[in-house]
């Protein structure tokens, strides 16, 4: 386990920058090599080649690829990620809108999946090979193997169209759309800040279903991993010793076992969260959720490189930052690393 001295932190930040730069180069090259040409999407299918050439020049696509890259990195360093062809807006403005939508959904999903997944996995391990374990296994298997698309549509049919328990697709009902001035971009937070409870509850009714559906597949993974971590620990000597001392199962699990699997749990939670933040494309499409997954998909469809590159950078940064945070969490959760640091 690494120490977290200022030097180490600086090294990590340096690593992050290098990795992001490498990511940028790869994405840039792939994007430029692909046959998808954004010019056609702008000038239209019937335009003559002169119009194509003029637009290509305007977008700087006529320059050699290395030159395009230098220009891109230059503006990037000035904080300018360019303009998205998709929307005509600066990419930063688009991302500032799309990312909070995904963030809100993913955060809720990861909370739900942790609250259910971790206890489920632990109980399944404790009651290994009993009916409970079997049911937990089936639940996880279903969550892991049935496509989210199917769950999304079926969920909408049952809970929205038939039972009317939840709101429909989109972040909020049409008649409330656009009434809240975005401050954080998180609709649940913004509506509460404005004291607009109608919008808040409406937004809750809209987010519940997609969040639960996303949470289900993440939960399946978390529960399965928790189960195997727990099983591994149950055979350890310290558990046997605790049992011999007469400690209750509850005490063993909460006092001894949980701290021991906490580090591993944090890692898989970070992975799950990263996966969800990446933009659950399918869920976002089924639920007309204007998040980063949908934004990137649309950008890919027309070869909108500025949008794709910026989105890739954001996702790359998220993964690396999550990784960094989960490493930091080791420090807190694992006493051995603490001693080394002291």
């Amino acid at each position, binding site marked *: 386990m690494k120490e977290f001295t200022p030097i180490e932190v600086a090294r990590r930040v340096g690593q992050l920058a290098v990795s992001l730069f490498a990511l940028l180069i790869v994405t840039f090259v792939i994007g430029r090599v692909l046959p998808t040409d954004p010019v056609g999407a702008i000038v239209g299918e019937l335009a003559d080649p002169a119009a194509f050439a003029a637009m290509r020049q305007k977008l700087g696509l006529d320059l050699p690829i290395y030159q395009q890259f230098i220009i891109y990195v230059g503006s990037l360093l000035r904080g300018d990620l360019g303009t998205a062809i998709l929307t*005509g807006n600066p990419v930063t403005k688009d991302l500032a809108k799309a990312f909070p939508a995904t963030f809100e959904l993913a955060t809720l999903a990861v909370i739900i999946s942790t609250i259910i997944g971790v206890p489920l996995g632990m109980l399944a391990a404790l009651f290994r090979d009993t009916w409970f374990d079997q049911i937990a296994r089936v639940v996880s298997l279903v969550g892991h193997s049935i496509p989210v698309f199917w769950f999304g549509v079926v969920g909408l049919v049952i809970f929205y169209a038939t039972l009317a328990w939840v709101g429909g697709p989109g972040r909020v009902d049409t008649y409330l759309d656009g009434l809240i001035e975005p401050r954080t971009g998180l609709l649940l937070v913004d509506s509460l800040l404005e004291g607009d*409870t109608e919008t808040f509850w409406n937004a809750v009714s809209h987010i519940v279903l997609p969040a639960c559906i996303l949470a289900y597949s993440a939960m399946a993974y978390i529960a399965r991993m928790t189960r195997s971590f727990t099983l591994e620990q149950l055979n350890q000597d310290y558990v046997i010793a605790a049992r011999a001392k007469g400690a209750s199962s509850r005490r063993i699990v909460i006092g001894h076992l949980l701290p021991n699997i906490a580090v591993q749990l944090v890692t898989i939670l970070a992975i799950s969260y990263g996966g969800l933040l990446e933009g659950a494309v399918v869920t976002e499409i089924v639920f007309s959720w204007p998040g980063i997954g949908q934004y990137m998909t649309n950008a890919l469809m027309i070869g909108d490189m500025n949008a794709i590159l910026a989105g890739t950078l954001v996702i790359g940064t998220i993964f690396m930052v999550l990784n960094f945070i989960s490493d930091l969490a080791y420090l807190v959760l694992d006493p051995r690393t603490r001693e080394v640091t002291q």
Partner: protein
Amino acid sequence: MTYLITRSISGAALALLVSTAPIAKAETPANQLVIGTSLAQVLSVDPQQGTEPKTQEILAAVYDRLVYVDEKNQLKPQLAESWTVDQTGITFKLRDAKFSSGNPVTAKDVVFSLVRLLKLNQSASSYFKNSGFSADNIETLVKAVDQKTLRIELTKATTSEDLLYRLAMGISSVVDSVEVQKHFANNDYGNEWLRTNAAGSGPYVLRRWTPNETVILEANKDYWGSAPKMVRVIMRHVPESQTARLMLEKGDIDIANALTAPDVKSFVGNAKFAIDATKVGGFYVLAMNAAREPLSKPEVREALAYGIDYKNIAATILGPYGRPRNVPVPEDWAGAIANPDWSFQPEKAKALLAKAGYPNGFSLTLKTIAQPPRVDMATAIQANLAQIGVKVEIKQGNGADIVAQHRARDFDLLIPQSAAVMPNALGALNDFVTNPDNRAEAKNAGNFVWRSDWNITEINALRDKANAEADTAKRADMVKQLQEMFIAQKPAVLPMFERFEPIVRNVNVVGYSPNLWALNRLENVTKTAKK
């Protein structure tokens, strides 16, 4: 203790919040129209740039044109109160109207808009360019006589009727020249600004456009006509068809206009909903590369025409989206000739292949956009052609890829779709019979026939003659002859299905009048009480 206090405070807060929870309601307000659509292709609301159908629906509401084409394909006045046609041109009298900025609509604005169209030189301008207008001559052909009088001279390549139809298209929308000129940058005619903003005189103003999310239109208080009944029109991006279907059933949207064929079909027989299928005058086409062996042989092209099970594809895949037709003029339009014998007849197809020297068939690639219904059509065509010994490999791509390859003549077979430039036979034929110069150097990549490398000098000459012919009877004769020649030459641009754009609307929505270019005006839409 602190724990207890925080807990009870947060508990009370939660209880308060819960007590405000409303009862779920799912119904659109009576004075608002909500349309579930796909905004994925809406990249620009500049009328002289955006040609995509979903864009047209926005332009229809925000801008006016001199004239419009109603749901029966009849020309009607819009900004022009009246017009007189003479031998050399058309003189328009404009009505009193104001742009949403408050500026009056004058003949100068119309001139500005048409000049802008040709100078911007985007795809949109091609419809005027193939009528003989160009960036160089437009300023001499379109003139403001006075504030309210406009004169447009005819070119040698067009008739007054054709010109009027072109003026009814979304690309001819009249923009507020004063407003747009304020936003000129880098010689772009205000394109950068008008791409995301609007400056029109239509019944609605563009309140908000969030790409890939919503378009909000609000009634224009200064509109020259009677005030729109719907104070707001909301277009919501619902990319997944099944989701849109559920929202429509539930009453969260009033109209769905981007449903897949199976989802449209699910509303058949449901008394609460009506299906309006608008005939757009265009076709789903099988483009063949006539420069490549063996497609260069007319017999081979005809064999393929005999090798496709149009009936079955229409019934199982296209449903409300298409109807079999191999002549590029919709069956019920004036002057359309009967369909040739081309239907699924594998024996005839094989005989033709044998005659052309390919008794054992051959292999081809078929390129298509990876979207329904075209990708499903490709699979069906692959299966059909296998039965006549033609092995087809399907290559899918996104819109931009496939169009780029089509433009670059880089394909064996490809499935594009055509559109009618006018709601008449000649307008529907246009994409199929125009190819002034087939040489590669001509780089006429906007032209469908050129892309197939199909040299049709004779047909093109007749097309030019027909377009310039003012005598209706003579013109009708030429139109008939054009269709016959087209079929006789075994087209490399083979029409397969007439295209329709189906929408499903709640029956309480009244007065929604579809137009073939999706320029659907909404000012007369009303909603009756829901049953």
